[in-house]
């Protein structure tokens, strides 16, 4: 079994009200010194057996089109216990 992890984060220039609300709440919860919080999504895909090259291409396509809205989000795709494929912008 292979696990593919896709991390999707709002682009830096896009307002992230959820992250902002958390950042604002932190000092009142006694947690100081956090400059910023951003909230994104994490997807874990489980694939039976070993990931084939074709499947990997499929999943990269899905990550870039379905799991991410490229207008407002970037993503990083990671195959667990495997190398990292980074198709988003530098993070």
């Amino acid at each position, binding site marked *: 079994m292979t696990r593919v992890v896709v991390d999707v984060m709002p682009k830096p*220039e*896009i*307002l992230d*009200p*959820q992250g902002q*609300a958390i950042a604002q709440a932190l000092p009142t919860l006694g947690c100081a010194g956090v400059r910023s919080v951003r909230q994104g999504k994490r997807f874990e895909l489980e694939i039976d057996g070993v990931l084939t090259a074709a499947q990997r291409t499929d999943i990269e396509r899905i990550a870039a089109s*379905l*799991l991410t*809205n490229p*207008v*407002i989000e970037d993503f990083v795709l990671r195959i667990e216990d495997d190398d990292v494929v980074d198709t988003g912008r530098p993070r």
Partner: protein
Amino acid sequence: MSVRVGVVTFPGSLDDRDALRAVAAARAEPVGLWHADADLHGVDAVVLPGGFSYGDYLRAGAIARFAPVMRLVIEQAAAGLPVLGICNGFQVLCEAHLLPGALARNDHQRFRCQDQQLIMERTSTDWTQGYQPGQVVVIPLKHGEGRYVADSPTLDELEAEGRVVVRYFGQSPNGAARGIAGISNPAGNVVGLMPHPEHAIDPLTGPSADGLPFFTSVLQRLVA
């Protein structure tokens, strides 16, 4: 010859029956379209209705845009088919790149249902010919992800080309960029907006009848 306006039902569409009712109220022939049919049944225009297609769990409209029926909508929109996306339908149009930008979570992070004042800006689209530029209307909105976002060049372009169809009047209900409530493609046949004109066709069941011209406009355009 009667004008046939299709309304697509995706799994999780909710305001599809309301859109069909509005089409009928405008005296066009309402035609139900099914997401899994790769067939538009010869309709003259298409409405993508409100709702939570596929639960909207991932991002609103993200999965629906891949539905078989959408391939045809995208194809024929390019050829001039009038397409109106309402709320979830607007989200689908953006996800499908028929319209630029995206709809993000409301800045206050809550679902918001309210009667909203709007100002009509572009009235040369297939769906807004029945309005006067600058006309203020009251139409309900109800969404959790309705904050229109796009990068500045895109926003500048939309404004320069007069493609902002409708803006929130007064306080923004969701933090949308430049108060944008709805936009069109350059040709004006594809329009998306967050408010629900189909819920403002009769003062008995809505705050006004201010939404009806969306549906009569397309009729006028098609019989013209």
